């Protein structure tokens, strides 16, 4: 019975070892902010952080993350919105919004590693799909959030 730490809380999950983390988050723990898009690690809609690294939860089993710390989109907003979320609002990024949890989680992981990413850094790190085509605004919002975070 794997124990995982999700958004700071230890959860003991009674489920088969090969169950993808995505379905544990969504169906077992009810954290539906993380989305299912492809199930094969091809779209990034299911991106969460595992020990701070961006991970595609559809292709990560619960056994893979036993004992690790998982953060989902639900953990980003503390007393106020995370600067990335605020930049997303300022630039009116989402259209349907379905891909955006994954986009935002991929972005926060990138900015933790590279506080001032170039366009090439962004292209290399954020390979998520947005079927609504919000990419231009995503890029602007990433640069804006990076600036806010650097300037503290």
């Amino acid at each position, binding site marked *: 019975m794997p124990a995982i730490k999700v958004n700071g809380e230890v959860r003991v999950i009674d489920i088969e070892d090969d169950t993808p983390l995505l379905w544990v988050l969504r*169906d077992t723990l009810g954290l539906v902010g993380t989305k299912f898009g*492809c199930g094969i690690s091809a779209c990034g809609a299911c991106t969460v952080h595992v020990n701070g690294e961006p991970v595609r939860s559809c292709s990560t089993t619960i056994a893979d993350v036993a004992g690790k710390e998982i953060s989902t989109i639900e953990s980003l907003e503390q007393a106020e919105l995370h600067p990335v979320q605020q930049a997303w609002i300022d630039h009116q990024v*989402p259209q349907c*919004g*379905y891909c955006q949890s994954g986009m935002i989680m991929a972005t926060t992981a990138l900015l933790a590693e590279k506080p001032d990413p170039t366009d090439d850094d962004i292209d290399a790190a954020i390979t998520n799909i947005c079927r*609504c*085509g919000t*990419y231009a605004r995503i890029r602007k919002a990433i640069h804006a959030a990076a600036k806010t975070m650097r300037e503290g």
Partner: protein
Amino acid sequence: MAMSRRKFLLTTAVAGGALAVGYVALKPEEDTRLVFQKTARGGEVALNAWIKIDATGTVTVAAPRAEMGQGIYTALAMLVAEELDVDWKSVRVEDAPVHPVYANREMLRAALPFEDGYHQGENTSGAQFMGWLAEMLSAQGTGGSTSIRDAWEPMRNAGACARHMLVTAAAQKWNVPAADCQAADGVITHKGSGKTLTYGDLATSASSLMPPENPPLKNAADYKLIGKAVPRLDIADKTTGRAIFGVDVKTDGMLHAAVNVAPVMGGSLKSYDKDALGGMPGVVAVVALPTGIAVVADSWWHAKKAADSAVIEFNDGGNGSLSSEGIYKLLEENIQSGDPFTYRNDGDAEEVFEHNGDDIIANYQVPYLAHACMEPMNCTARVVGDNVEIWMPNQAPFLMRYLASRIVDTDVENVQVYTTYLGGGFGRRAEGDLAEQAVRIAMAVPGKTVKLLWSREDDMRHDMYRPAARSMFRARLDDKGRPFAWFNRIAGQVPTKSFTQRIFDFATLDMPDNTSSEGSADMPYAIPNLQVQHVPVTLPVPVGFWRSVGHSYNAFFTESFMDELAVKAGQDPYKYRRDLLAAHPDYLAVLDRVASEADWDLPMHSGRGRGIALHESFGSLVAQVAEVSVLPDDTIQLDRVICVVDCGRVINPDTVVAQIEGAIVFGLSAALYGDITLTDGAVDQGNFPDYEMVRLNNMPKIEVHLAPSGRPIGGIGEVGTPPLAPALANAIFNATGKRVRELPLSKAGLVG
């Protein structure tokens, strides 16, 4: 086989009449205010079918159209709030119940033949008739880029009526003339005394007043919201994970379902081993469906694992040998010898081509395309006796209600449809297949809520595809190089027929359909001899409405071939088009503007190229210039798209720009990669690596300029897609001298 117009309208009416079976007609005496009042919570009072106000003054607007990213919830609320004179911060939006009062008349009117401005179809009695029919049928749907065009009058009216009733209620309370009472930001002030009352104070007394017949509406100069880049109401929740899509619906004790269905088009269930599935972890029930099986379990993962493991056999419905090769061959045969319907016939093109001359002939082709909404297909349902509840990200709640009532054999009044946010729609979510399947599954576990979710592979292999099509052109130029005669024959399946037959399998509908000729028959260029035909082809591949429908391929065909003629005439493609648009100053203005924004006359470096395209769809004019570079490996990179849009009055400029940006990317993904192919009757593609998308790393720069001219309001959700493919193909010709007549570009090795 030119069917007379009158006969056509009659046939349509009969077909439409069949739709009425099982629907609730709007009773003339019905108080439509009560429709929204029934949804009231926490002391809300409805003033009409679109507005509820609670004691704190919070205004809830009924949104009868689906929010799928196009910002319609915000735009509809803006129309109401503008005339209501309420503080924008106190406005919220709620999914409207299903009722005829919310019918989308504009959508059915647009489905009429010849509604293209050229054939004046929108002003006929037939069009009016369809409008009434829509109301009767409760055609509450989102599609055809119609939402704002449909809502512009009724929703501003709803705001103005409510405002009038609130002012009247205040005047009665104070016993003063209404003319002395002023409304602003949700507060009514008596001019003489300075006394104030809020909308929240007045809602109950206002709700019992008679609404005015024709309340005066504001002049455009006085607008405070309309025309402003108002931040969207749904965006904050879409950055925190709080927005609820269909896939996120939760109820206590909810079960989950996954399917295993026949891979071949039209296939059906032959046999399966039920016992083997029953023992698998979490499995609650196994349900036989016409096309396969559904497994119901305690989690989707359990349901999916069991469904995938099923020992199952299918019939192939006689389509086991269907292949893309055979389909394209059939399309070409239909171009050669099919039975076409003529959508436009000016002058006498046939006569011109009887005389010997130097003809330009070209054949174009496009493939089937999948919608690939980001949120995989899903529907949640519960059936308790005669009562059905459906939670679904959908574009046509009236249709879901009807289909559910038919399966359960109950009245439509017993079916509740709750529309969630849609993780993309693009036409796919107007289809009823998920609702039908979910209700069938829910009937097998009565009283339980079941969430049916398809995998990405289920979605890609069982879509209602954008039809594959071929297009043949023949043209002759006059001595100045202008097109003197133009003949175009397109062959492909017809979406409206396919869609209707999925609902009513008895419907034959062998009649013309605008959705196959739109964007070709209605082109604006002055050509004295012009004939445009479409040959409807019957194939077992289900086809449907894909963002911009017929325009999605006809713009590519028509605007590419126009470019070929300019090249043949030795003229600049922009100026060539210009000379053919003297009768259309509005088209000309958009074309000129895009040329100047793109610095069309500045030469480009070698290895680069630019192309132009102009296209009208859904009442809006869009011109695009694409700039490309040829990379060292001879593949093409799209660097920049400059786009000019005239959609008439703009409600929210930022959402309009966003829709155009998104529609360009949608068109680009299709132009670069989109290719659904068939082998042995089944779709070859299953997931994103086989059906690739534009991502950040190959995203072009996009510049959108709005140029509203004063035309009537046009659509926005789809109109940015059609010109992208021809502008790109024309740019590739400009850069390389290579004419692209077939999509996607990846087929020709042009994509890295």
